[in-house]
């Protein structure tokens, strides 16, 4: 009895209508323009921050009752905080930090409270001859600046200690040691391990990608659900079910709305990516060559873009199919929020896991989630950005995702076929399962 209609051409006709209906909407155009501007703003933000950094010098006061100690602390802190980027002409480079010896401790405290100072380094000698160094700061206690000041404190201690050596002791000038971190789980580019600066940039870009992926999957997925629900509430579905099969309608909706989402996504992301890709030149034009050298490196490669595109399409397909089945089960769009909440939470779990991975998390859950649909689009993308991923791992993750989409598509088509005929019933899991059985 069941008629088996081919997907084409009806799925394509439906997809075209869905696409046009969305991209011609004034809300779509307005939101695309606003989001495009926001994305450009985000892409330009590192250069912008750098631009304002160049204009502003951060002041740190050194306060001590011992003038020699104060001078030593000023010199060491200055050498640690004001490191010129490699290749910079030191004669033109302007220091980002001004380290000054301030005799009036109370005045320094007032300036700190008013925000004129970013910190006060208090250096005193205890009766036991041990140095007591306190860094009072308005910034975070574990920030990079605080850590560097901590290094400076140790260096001041060493210098003070070596000052007590016999006068004839032969010591060269003190040199701030070079220090670098070599993590073993770093991302690679064509087999080359990325340097820390590139890794940091990748983490930043990873957050942008994961947030975009989460937003697009959930927002565009909900477009599908509301589209189906609106057809039901306006009773258009009654006419559609005789003109096209549930498979054709489901495929047409997912493809059409997915294409509309992809169009908006490209309109938002391409200009932003262009900014990121040419960030060096833009930074040089705005900041000048000396400051541009210190601007963040993007670390964006065609392979990463391809990876993002693949996980976007696969992730959207998976969630759009689920959302379409949801949409078919409600009689009014208002009921969608309730029914789709558990499935949106799945996306949230994937998103949080991905953010954890970007923050350096590499536990068993991150590894498992990077293979496990529906979390894998988010988590594997995050791992790709900031960790070493073997080619087989990537292939397995994508294969599992494709297999999950195939299974969900079959189930969603059955549920859709049953759901579109349900009216006036409160959506619930029991009705969902019962209707899916009936559809068979």
């Amino acid at each position: 009895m069941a008629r088996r209609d081919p997907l084409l051409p009806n799925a394509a006709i439906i997809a075209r209508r869905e696409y046009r209906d969305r991209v011609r909407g004034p809300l779509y155009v307005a939101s695309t323009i606003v989001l495009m501007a926001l994305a450009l703003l985000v892409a330009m933000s590192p250069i912008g921050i750098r631009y304002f950094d160049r204009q502003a010098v951060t002041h740190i006061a050194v306060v001590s009752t011992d003038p020699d100690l104060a001078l030593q602390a000023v010199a060491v802190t200055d050498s640690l905080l004001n490191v010129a980027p490699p290749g910079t002409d030191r004669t033109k480079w302007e220091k980002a930090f001004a380290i000054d010896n301030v005799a009036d401790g109370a005045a320094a405290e007032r300036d700190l409270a008013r925000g004129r100072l970013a910190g006060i380094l208090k250096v005193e000698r205890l009766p036991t001859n041990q140095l007591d160094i306190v860094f009072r700061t308005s910034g975070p206690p574990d920030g990079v600046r605080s850590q560097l000041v901590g290094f400076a404190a140790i260096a001041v201690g060493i210098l003070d200690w070596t000052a007590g050596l016999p006068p004839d002791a032969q010591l060269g000038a003190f040199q701030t040691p070079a220090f670098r971190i070599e993590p073993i789980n770093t991302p690679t580019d064509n087999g080359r391990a990325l340097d820390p600066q590139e890794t940091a940039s990748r983490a930043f870009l990873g957050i942008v990608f994961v947030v975009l992926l989460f937003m697009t999957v959930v927002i565009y997925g909900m477009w599908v659900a509301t589209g189906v629900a609106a057809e039901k509430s306006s009773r258009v579905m009654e006419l559609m079910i005789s003109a096209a099969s549930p498979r054709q309608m489901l495929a047409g909706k997912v493809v059409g709305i997915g294409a509309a989402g992809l169009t908006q996504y490209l309109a938002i992301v391409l200009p932003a990516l262009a900014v990121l890709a040419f960030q060096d030149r833009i930074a040089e034009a705005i900041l000048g060559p000396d400051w541009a050298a210190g601007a963040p490196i993007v670390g964006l490669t065609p392979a990463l873009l391809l990876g993002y595109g693949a996980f976007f399409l696969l992730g959207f397909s998976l969630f759009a199919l689920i959302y379409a089945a949801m949409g078919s089960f409600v009689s009014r769009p208002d009921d969608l929020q309730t029914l789709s909440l558990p499935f949106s939470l799945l996306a949230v779990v994937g998103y949080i896991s991905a953010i954890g991975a970007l923050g350096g998390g590499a536990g068993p859950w991150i590894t498992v989630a990077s293979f496990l649909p529906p979390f894998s689009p988010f988590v594997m993308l995050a791992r790709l950005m900031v960790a070493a991923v073997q080619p087989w791992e990537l292939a397995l993750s994508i294969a599992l995702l494709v297999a999950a989409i195939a299974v969900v598509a079959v189930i969603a088509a059955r549920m859709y076929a049953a759901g579109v005929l349900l009216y006036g019933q409160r959506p619930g899991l029991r009705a969902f399962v019962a209707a899916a059985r009936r559809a068979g």
Partner: protein
Amino acid sequence: MLRPCERNPAILARVGLEIDHVTKRFGATIALDGLTFDVPPGEVFGFLGANGAGKTTTMRICLGIVAPDAGQIRWNGLPVGDLPRRTWGYLPEERGLYPRMTVLDQLVYYASLYGRPPDRARREALAWLSRFRIPDYADRRAEELSKGNQQKVQFIAAILHDPDVLLMDEPFTGLDPINLVLLREAFMELRDRGRTLIFSTHQMEAAEAMCESVAIVDYGRLVAGGRLRDLKRASGRQWIRLALDGPSPAPDWLADLRGVDAVRRNATGTELELQPGGQPAAILAEILARGATVAEFAVVEPSLEALFIELVGRPAEDDVVMLPASASASGPAPGSAAAGRA
């Protein structure tokens, strides 16, 4: 039920629509219970029953939207699952159009889904819009149209791909008299072009005016089916159509007349159902003896509405109370399926 091919050799090759012992359950509820009847091809056919009688489910099975648990539906001898979707046109009971889409785009869209080339669909859609006196609405959004005009657009959407069979669920609901006439004329034109039109309705007058054959269903079973003329003759009852001069409504004493079984009042007058052996002349004499002035007195066959009430036991406006499967065997399914296909 007489098959049309038995009467008309010209359409021997076309056997029309065969609903063949179709059963459908939804959980514990039986929607169709071995429903069986034929629809002659090239006719306007009335599919009558109260809400919940199984009409929409039957139509959905025809369209392949719902699968039957047992039985088969065939069109010209072929199971409906083997037929292309464009065989059917469907006007659902619930009206709905894409609110923001223009009327013409909408019509071309639906026709395209049935395989109609867009240019041809556009041309034909404009012709139908003119025919229904709404040519200026082609480029308007559906949400700007009145309900009646939306219904006309939806009817055009159902026929634009020129289907062999047009299934319509309550097509006259919400239409004003002028649009009702336009729709009836369209029905007749489609019938004259050899199309088969099947519609369900509560409006018995409309069904009586247009249908050559009907099927009356109740609780998912056929109560009676066949040529309307034959069904009326088979009922063996006579009715008197009566109109009295003077204040309406008709006086209550009409029910007390000897030989009168029932009195039914409607907008156009009063109908008296005669008891078997009742004498119209004696009844007329008694009415005149009571001092009434008779404007119209005619012995007629029962109306379709009267026939429906006689066969089903209640008016078509009364909903069917759905029965669980366990109760249906001894349930109140009235009438007999004797008029259906053997």
